[in-house]
């Protein structure tokens, strides 16, 4: 588009034409005159202004733009322009605190708050000094804006400043601070929070902060808030009570006792939240219901577990309830299948864990329910019944569980497999006998192989060998994996055939299994696999030979360094490093100039095996890599080297690192020495 046509488009009566013109300018922002940016920012249509914000953020004339926008924020009555200007200042204003301070000093009272808002949007910690003065000023609007700005910037210093002003006599400001600290996730100590929440208005918005104190005295305030007419306040209070109970482990019994004698309106709010609250509220309410051992809420709690809403603490609290929970659980028999499935399984577990407290009649009842439910119509219930059998350890159950392995339901087979695995530890002979004639060609062939692998017996190996002829590649793969336990020559040969199976997953499993076997016969099929047309097979074969210290394979593995597939090059380099190949240094250096992340990482791992000085030099190259996971690996390897030089390199890297996880890895690594 020529500049004349662009100019024409910018002045079009059609806002969409103007929007598109500004959008085009933002694709090539350099050289856009400042006046055009400012005009676009003051356009009457929000869509044009939004495009202008993207354009302005890319300008090279940042200082001029900031000066112009600060003036406009202070002088304009055009709300659209002002908001757009504030947003742009937030993007371009970092490191320019002086300009903002000067603009604030010269601005009238009514507009200073807008400049303060822009300061916050820069997220620049340098602004904090000035905001500290403003928060103490006499203008409540500016002080509240300064609070909001500090929240935007965040960090320990901003939090401390806000906490210091928490007891301000100005209600409006106190409300802003409480909201800000809540959003920042700050844990305000009870002694500091208490004076602030004496006021009923402040208290209504303080639920989260109260919950975070971990202080039992906060409970009384929260119980009051839980019965508030506003569902939001009530839900926030219930979530906070749950957090309080989780935090205050030492006082948990005291809290539970208090909750147990709470009034009916609290219980009503609590049940309402459990049934109809949002996910976080249901989660909190479910936890509280279990802590308080509220049998009336049990079904709703189990629903929350079934819906994947209840957290792990709730499930653990259910287990801690003990034998007293068994009867209420058994009363859920007519509930929804998912609820009953959880009830049955938990009842079976509790009856095993509290054997001495559970009457024989109750155990017999659970047992007969399990037997009945093994043929239930729903997968959830059948799976729960199968899983529950593991608590009995009865050899007679093996046959029923093996039958479950023929189920078309993945879930039922998985539960039966888990139960049989447990039984394989307690009654291996019974499991082996039950599996002797198992149908490895059925849908549960892979699961049967999995159980057989736990038996580690001659009989199991013989059954598994049969499975190598299965028509289902999933079964053949599982059988090959399971046969890793049989470290015998003839088995290695059989698995060797699987290296040329028609299914690639069977081939991969075969190569891996051979890699784990001690017999020399494994080397020949692995060498064959180095020529596979499939890159993952070539890679796995190289790794397997490397792990087996098959140094005779070095020349062929070296050849894979020229492979066109990065996964193969990376594996070859790893294998050569394990084999201590003399050419690893050169290969590592080459890998560190490769564009693929996996090859680069293999280069780092290989470099790590070199003499210290060389390792330091090469591994540190990973600290500059653009991918965070590559930098993480470099950090791990440098920390493992742990020399003065590597520590200095890591300290240096910390200054430039922007990824929080990577920073954390460096900080904790350096601290750990």
């Amino acid at each position, binding site marked *: 588009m020529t500049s004349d046509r662009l100019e024409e488009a910018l002045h*079009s*009566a*059609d*806002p*969409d*034409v103007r*929007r598109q013109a500004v*959008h085009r300018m933002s694709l090539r922002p350099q050289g856009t005159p400042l006046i055009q940016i400012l005009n676009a920012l003051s356009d009457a249509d*929000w*869509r*044009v202004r*939004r*495009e202008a914000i993207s354009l302005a953020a890319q300008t090279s004339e940042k200082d001029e733009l900031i000066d112009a926008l600060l003036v406009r924020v202070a002088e304009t009555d055009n709300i659209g322009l002002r908001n757009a200007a504030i947003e742009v200042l937030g993007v371009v204003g970092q490191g320019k605190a002086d300009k903002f301070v000067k603009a604030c000093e010269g601005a009238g009272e009514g507009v200073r708050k807008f400049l303060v808002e822009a300061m916050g949007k820069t997220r620049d910690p340098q602004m904090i000094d000035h905001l500290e003065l403003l928060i103490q000023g006499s203008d409540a609007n500016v002080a509240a804006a300064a609070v909001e700005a500090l929240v935007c910037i965040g960090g320990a210093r901003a939090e401390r400043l806000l906490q210091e002003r928490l007891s301000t006599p100005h209600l409006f400001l106190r409300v802003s601070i409480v909201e800000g600290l809540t959003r920042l996730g700050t844990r305000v100590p009870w002694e500091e929070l208490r004076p602030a929440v004496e006021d009923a208005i402040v208290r209504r918005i303080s639920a989260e902060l109260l919950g975070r104190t971990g202080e039992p005295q906060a409970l009384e305030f929260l119980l009051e808030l839980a019965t508030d007419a506003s569902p939001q306040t009530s839900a926030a209070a219930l979530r906070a009570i749950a957090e309080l109970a989780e935090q205050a482990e030492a006082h948990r019994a005291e809290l539970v006792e208090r909750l147990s004698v709470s009034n009916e309106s609290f219980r009503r709010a609590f049940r309402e939240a459990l049934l109809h609250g949002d996910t976080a509220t249901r989660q909190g309410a479910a936890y509280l219901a279990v802590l308080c051992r509220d049998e009336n809420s049990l079904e709703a709690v189990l629903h929350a*577990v*079934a819906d*994947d809403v209840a957290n792990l603490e709730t*499930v653990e609290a259910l287990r801690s309830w003990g034998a007293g929970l068994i009867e209420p659980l058994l009363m859920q028999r007519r509930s929804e299948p*998912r609820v009953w*499935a*959880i009830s049955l*399984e*938990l009842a079976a*577990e509790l009856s095993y864990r509290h054997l001495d407290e559970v009457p024989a009649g109750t155990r017999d009842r659970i047992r007969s329910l399990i037997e009945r439910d093994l043929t239930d119509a729903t997968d*959830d219930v059948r*799976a*729960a019944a199968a*899983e529950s059998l593991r608590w009995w350890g009865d050899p007679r159950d093996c046959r029923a569980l093996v039958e479950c392995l023929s189920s078309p339901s*993945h*879930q039922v087979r*998985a*539960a039966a497999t*888990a139960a049989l695995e447990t039984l394989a530890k307690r009654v291996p002979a019974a499991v082996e006998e039950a599996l002797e004639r198992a149908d490895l060609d059925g849908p549960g062939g*892979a699961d049967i192989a999995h159980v057989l692998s736990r038996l580690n017996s001659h009989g199991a190996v013989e059954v598994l060998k049969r499975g190598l002829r299965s028509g289902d590649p*999933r079964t053949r*793969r*599982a059988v090959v*994996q399971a046969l890793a336990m049989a470290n015998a020559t003839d088995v290695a040969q059989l698995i060797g055939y699987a290296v040329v199976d028609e299914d*690639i*997953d069977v081939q991969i*499993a075969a190569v891996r299994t051979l890699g784990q076997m001690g017999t020399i016969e494994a080397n020949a099929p692995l060498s064959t696999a180095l020529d596979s047309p*499939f*890159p*993952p097979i070539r*890679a796995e074969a190289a790794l397997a030979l490397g792990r087996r210290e098959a140094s005779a394979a070095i020349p062929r593995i070296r050849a894979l360094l020229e492979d066109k*597939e990065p*996964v193969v090059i990376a594996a070859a380099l790893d294998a050569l490093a394990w084999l201590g190949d003399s050419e690893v240094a050169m290969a590592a250096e080459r890998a560190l100039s490769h564009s693929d992340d*996996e090859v680069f990482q293999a280069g780092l791992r290989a470099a790590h095996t070199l003499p210290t000085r060389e390792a330091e030099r090469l591994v540190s190259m990973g600290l500059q890599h653009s991918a*965070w*996971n590559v930098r*993480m690996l470099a950090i791990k390897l440098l920390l493992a080297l742990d020399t003065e030089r590597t520590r200095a390199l890591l300290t240096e890297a910390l200054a430039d690192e922007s990824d929080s*996880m990577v920073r954390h890895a460096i900080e904790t690594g350096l601290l750990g020495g």
Partner: protein
Amino acid sequence: MTLLHDVGPTLDLKEFRLLRDFVNQFCGIYFADDSAYIVERRLRERLRDLGIDDFAEYYRYLQYHPRADAELEAAAEVLTTNETYFFREAYQLRAFTDEILPVVRGRALARGSKRIDVWSAGCSSGEEVYTIAMLVDATGLFEGWDIRVFGNDISRRVLRKARGATYTSASFRAMIPDYERYFIDTEEGRQVHPRIRSMCHFGHVNLMNQRRAAIVGRVDVTFCRNVLIYFDDASRRKVLETIYERLNRGGYLLLGHSESLLQSSTAFEIAQLSTDIVYRRPVPYTELPPRKF
């Protein structure tokens, strides 16, 4: 693996981020770090199915395995399934029937057509698609018209359910009694009436795949409710571009009640209706009626 005992490989933060980014590139869905446990739970099923022992190996599978593309779809499937129900966000549906449909009808008639196309982008198990068809039918404005409601999802599992059109109680939590007549009781649940089903079509489309989304054709209204909230900014922009491309000029986009386009796209204009704010693909200025003073 049962509802109570969910054990299996654990996903550390590094593996989580690698897998998260991989899935994000494929289908746009984004999981924050605090959702790692959800990803761990849902993907365990895939690891078990593939006979894979840990998540690092699964990541390699997704990168290098010849069947990686199919597996990525399967991973997206288990990670993206979200529940929905009939007549969700009723106030917005009222705006659709009372204000949008009459405009859409007028526009269609003006171009000499008796056909309307509605797209439910990310339709999950189909409740929204059938809700839309029932609403259109119930207005009585479209007797003898060709009504097409197209729903897409990335999950084949939910599409199977959508095509089956049979639902249990959870799907009826916001049911409007007047519409009961559109359902037939069956042993498996309540099934949508064949007349409504005949208006509805489904397809397996990844919203991030602009070329494949072209199958939708040009539509008058797009519902994309509570879908974009699961996407990151870049993916959201890309999907909005696709939706924009698929809408007729003047066509409407309806988002979920907590969603806004303000940070994601300037291509749509805001249409203020009496009970809701929706978005619209702008009509060229020259085609707008003259302003009345």
